[in-house]
């Protein structure tokens, strides 16, 4: 690996880790209701919101009440977004006069944003009004992220509390997440992004004459449409809230969305910022910061080697490029390696690192074409999603998913040392194992079954809406086409939203099945998580002794990493063998 790559990676990790402690501690204060500066400034707003909504912020909820609140809130959010997308033609802030979004697409998009997936079957600049973007997608970007954080906080309370029936108040957790964490951070990031050239306006799209017109004589392209809009505000929360839904179709590779290396660095930082800091929040709230550090260490132990692997794979280039006499060695004038599908202003390291960050966290935004990665370079982001989005993962959801892996690791480890397993003093019993198994089980089932249905026929070809002819949906059938479909379901079945590209998914089959996968992956997991939170909160806490297995040591971190990797590998190796692994072997054997 080049020195440049090493430097960029190290810088990224150092800045990220430096932010973990202060931000994590701040979030813990927010959720614990301990004083912090912002509550004095915005406290009146918080209180008046509760008054307005008729919420008693002092009332605590049982897990069932909490789960009901989550479902009702998200259900209403879904209906509102769906209505907005269908009615956008009649509503203001629509300079391009976009009509209603088709029902299947509107359904898919609403589910996608409510579930914090941000899978995009639509093209932002070609189908959505500014109002839909801001009032619909933007709002869901905030509240879906805040929902995940709230559920996590409820689970942490379950671990920390003793003999308690309640796990907090969803409305308070939700409001505080948005008001004190997501809004201030987004505001700062949006302003910095604007300074880098990200657009933020309500103007209609502009047309620019090309200096160097291209194309054959008959259809020369001499003019280009430049999409406008309130992009910076949307992009800030898209990155911070592990949403990933781009304002423009090309997402963060679009120059108006991610213009400079600095904006790229900041956006990449924003992707992992809160998921990483939540580990520390967890440690503080659980009363043992070592526990938070251990989980962060486990995440890094998976993330760093895999990110390095992607960088190395992309930098190594492909045998096909080599055969065509293209130099793939990095030099001062050339990035070398596999530059296909990558922006020249980011290069290989930043594209590969971004690909790993966006799939490790369930963000899903892209600054390069994952479809054009080398097979191995594409396998890693794919596998990062298939690990269940627990390596950083989504807002809150990554950590609560990881905590379920901890439950399984603690269970196995407890057996191996001859004690009924316990975590943070809470005994892990039949009920917890049932829920943890369910949570670990569901995403792989969604991915595998979804892919199986798609490759059996319905996902391979569709009748074109305008021409009526049947066309293949994938531009590259074979092992690569299989990878594309597997990637699509891995992304939605784990609420990531990252797209491999190369597969046209804006057809009813995909819009519906992917929406089902997204819904199940989100809410079918949230309910058992809250059930575990409720069950743990009710338990007494067993005191530590020499016979208690410590869960903050490198040994336990190692075990946790093994469990995550083993479950991920054992579940997906057969499928991966038919996709990227075959591709890689075919490529290297040429």
């Amino acid at each position: 690996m080049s020195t440049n790559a090493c430097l960029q990676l190290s810088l990224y990790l150092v800045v990220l880790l430096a932010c973990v402690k202060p931000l994590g501690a701040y979030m813990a204060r927010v959720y614990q209701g301990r004083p912090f500066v912002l509550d004095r400034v915005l406290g009146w707003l918080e209180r008046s919101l509760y008054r307005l909504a008729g919420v008693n912020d002092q009332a605590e909820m049982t897990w069932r009440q909490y789960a009901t609140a989550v479902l009702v809130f998200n259900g209403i959010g879904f209906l509102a977004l769906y209505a907005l997308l269908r009615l956008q033609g009649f509503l203001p802030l629509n300079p391009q006069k976009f009509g209603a979004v088709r029902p299947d697409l509107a359904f898919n998009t609403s589910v996608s944003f409510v579930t914090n997936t941000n899978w995009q079957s639509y093209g932002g600049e070609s189908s959505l009004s500014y109002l839909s973007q801001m009032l619909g997608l933007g709002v869901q970007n905030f509240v879906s992220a805040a929902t995940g954080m709230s559920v996590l906080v409820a689970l942490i309370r379950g671990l920390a509390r003793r003999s308690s029936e309640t796990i907090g108040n969803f409305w308070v957790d939700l409001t505080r997440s948005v008001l004190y964490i997501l809004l201030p951070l987004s505001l700062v990031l949006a302003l910095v992004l604007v300074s880098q050239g990200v657009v933020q306006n309500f103007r209609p799209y502009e047309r620019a004459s090309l200096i160097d017109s291209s194309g054959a004589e008959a259809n020369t392209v001499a003019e280009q449409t430049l999409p406008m809009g309130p992009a910076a505000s949307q992009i800030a929360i898209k990155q911070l809230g592990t949403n990933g839904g781009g304002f423009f179709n090309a997402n963060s590779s679009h120059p108006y969305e991610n213009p400079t290396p600095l904006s790229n660095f900041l956006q990449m930082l924003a992707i992992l910022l809160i998921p990483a800091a939540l580990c520390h929040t967890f440690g503080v709230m659980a009363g043992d910061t070592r526990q938070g550090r251990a989980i962060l260490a486990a995440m890094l132990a998976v993330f760093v080697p895999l990110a390095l692997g992607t960088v190395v794979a992309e930098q190594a280039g492909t045998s096909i490029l080599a055969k065509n006499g293209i130099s793939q060695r990095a030099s001062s004038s050339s990035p070398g390696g596999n530059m296909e599908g990558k922006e020249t202003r980011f290069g290989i390291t930043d594209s590969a690192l971004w690909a790993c960050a966006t799939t490790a966290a369930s963000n899903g935004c892209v600054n390069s074409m994952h479809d054009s990665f080398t097979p191995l370079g594409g396998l890693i982001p794919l596998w990062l999603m298939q690990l269940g989005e627990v390596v950083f993962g989504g807002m809150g959801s990554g950590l609560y998913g990881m905590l379920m892996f901890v439950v399984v690791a603690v269970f196995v480890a407890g057996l191996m040392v001859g004690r009924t397993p316990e975590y943070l003093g809470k005994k892990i019993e039949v009920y917890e194992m049932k829920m943890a198994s369910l949570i670990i089980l569901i995403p792989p089932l969604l991915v595998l079954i979804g892919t199986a249905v798609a490759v059996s026929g319905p996902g391979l070809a569709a009748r074109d809406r305008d021409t009526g002819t049947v066309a293949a949906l994938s531009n590259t059938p074979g092992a690569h086409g299989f990878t594309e479909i597997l990637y699509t379901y891995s992304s939605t079945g784990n609420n990531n939203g990252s797209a491999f590209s190369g597969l046209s998914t804006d057809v009813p089959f995909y819009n519906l099945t992917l929406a089902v996968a997204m819904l199940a992956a989100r809410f079918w997991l949230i309910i058992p998580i809250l059930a575990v939170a409720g069950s743990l909160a009710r338990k007494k806490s067993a005191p530590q002794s020499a016979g208690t297995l410590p869960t903050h040591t490198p040994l336990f971190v190692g075990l946790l990493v093994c469990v995550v990797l083993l479950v991920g590998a054992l579940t997906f190796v057969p499928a991966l063998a038919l996709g990227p692994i075959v591709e890689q072997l075919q490529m290297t054997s040429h």
Partner: protein
Amino acid sequence: MAATSKSRRLFDSSLVRQALAGSFRKLDPRRQVRNPVMFTVFVGSLLTSCLGIESLLFGGHESAGFVLSISAWLWFTLIFANFAEALAEGRGKAQADTLRKMKRDVEAKRLDAPDRNSACRTMLASQLRKGDVVLVETGDLVPADGEVIEGVASVDESAITGESAPVIRESGGDRSSVTGGTRVLSDWLIVRVSTNPGEAFLDRMIALVEGAKRQKTPNEIALDILLAALTIVFLVACTTLLPFSKYSVQTAGQGHPITISVVVALLVCLIPTTIGGLLSAIGIAGMDRMIRSNVIATSGRAVEAAGDVDVLLLDKTGTITLGNRQAVEFIPAPGVDLDALVDVAQLASLADETPEGRSIVVLAKEKYGLRGRNVHELGATFVPFSAQTRLSGVQLDGREIRKGETEAVEAFVRQHGGQTASEVRRAAEEIAKRGGTPLVVAEGGNALGVVHLKDIVKGGIKERFVQLRRMGIKTVMITGDNPLTAAAIAAEAGVDDFLAQATPEAKLKMIRSYQAEGRLVAMTGDGTNDSPALAQADVAVAMNSGTQAAKEAGNMVDLDSNPTKLIEIVEIGKQLLMTRGALTTFSLANDVAKYFAVIPAAFASTYPVLGRLNVMRLTTPESAVMSAVIFNALIIVMLIPLALRGVSYRPVGAERLLRDHMLVYGLGGLFTPFIGIKVVDLFLFAVGLT
């Protein structure tokens, strides 16, 4: 009896024969469905058998021989797992049978009223009901468990405890319970039957080792859930390979889609059959180990809880100290010669047959060279201890020699017109403060000095407590002594805490407060007044010599009535969990190698390039699949000894234990199958099966 059972070999030939028969009987689908992992194998075996017969009759691109041999090995996998369970059951039952033999139906003499002279009817013991009153006379077998309501008798309990010395059973007090199957050697007893037939401890124990009736323990259920979840994941991962490979064949334009038989083979290799197949054997073997150490547990849950115990409440007497105190020092009163004191003290104790008295004679001989004398030759008269005087001693040629506790001797001295020196009193207090018992010796009006009697802490018990501490278990000594004495002994024995002047209420309160802190408490007890505490404790071991009430309150009965057994019980509990954990880890780690064997083989025709993943260089795709399946079946058999004996427990910290077990069973589980599968493949090649 205990000795023969302990030496029973793991693969005793008669047990193996029985187990073999049992392993086929257990193929009953109603039994298989209880275990989700093995039921999946069961369905797979049926499916491949049908496929094999189909291709035998109608042909297909897969050879019937291949499918049928896969099918045969899947059946073997099931049979091996059944064999493990049957063998474990057989061993447990053999142990129980030995105990049950003495429970053969004996005749009982039922009395109409609890009076020896009332009408007596002879009936079979199995017809007795709870509450019946029976007469047991010299030479009779006690027909059922019960409580002595009248009489005193010596009883031979060797059949249950292995201890040959007869014990006294009498009405009232802590020695009032009798166990069915023991024999009355002298005198007679009237016993009130306390259990209905089939409910006695022995029957409960036998039920626990019989797989069909065995209740799953909570930990077993939790593990079952995890294994079932993994099975579902693998089931989906394998069955989705059918459409995946069909798509691959279509787009690659070559080869055949994966066959159902290979999918089933892969599935069976991947699902955790090793632990799934051995799970119930491990549980039964744990119960069996309890029985082997002469402990009858009334539930599997109790055995598991034993492994989790945080706090051990141990009775001082008998567990921590030897049952009796021993003389360790003579302290003369001022102006009294030491030799004179030793001489008088020895005279006072010569006829005293209590362990304390004997220990004074022994000390006088060993430390002061004073040989024992015969009381009768001396012409002395023994004055036994009485509750009124609280003194004992001898009358010798008009000399009145007495020994006893300070106040009693002081009173005696005063009676004889003497005065006890304040130094003597102080010496006595000093001894008490250090945890000893002072015994003052006097002759007439002279208090000659003090004998220091000391509680002797059992050899090796201190090291035992250090081990327990390393296991994370806190030891608490329970004693009726005063706090000073208790503290001294506690310090000497190295227990973590003590409860002095313990009353049943204080014990109960202590258990509750530990439990409120979230700890699991284990204790032993024998008296009726222990029952509330026993009922409250998480692991409660009643002594077999104890009262029926104590036995009913506890969840284990120690046939040897040995309070130190608690430590062994904890180890057995831990061993049980560790064996499950070790085999689960091993089973999962195995899967990596199986993928390397089966995946390249399964897709060899579509993507020959995947052959580069065949790192074991297995001969052919067929032999690769076969080798994985055969290895998967054989590993179950090879791990039966481990499952039955259990992973050995060492008292080291949790962290160290986890590291060692991860290395052995995790890393070992990763690499073993690479070698195993290769060996099987080479064998298949050598005998020309591939």
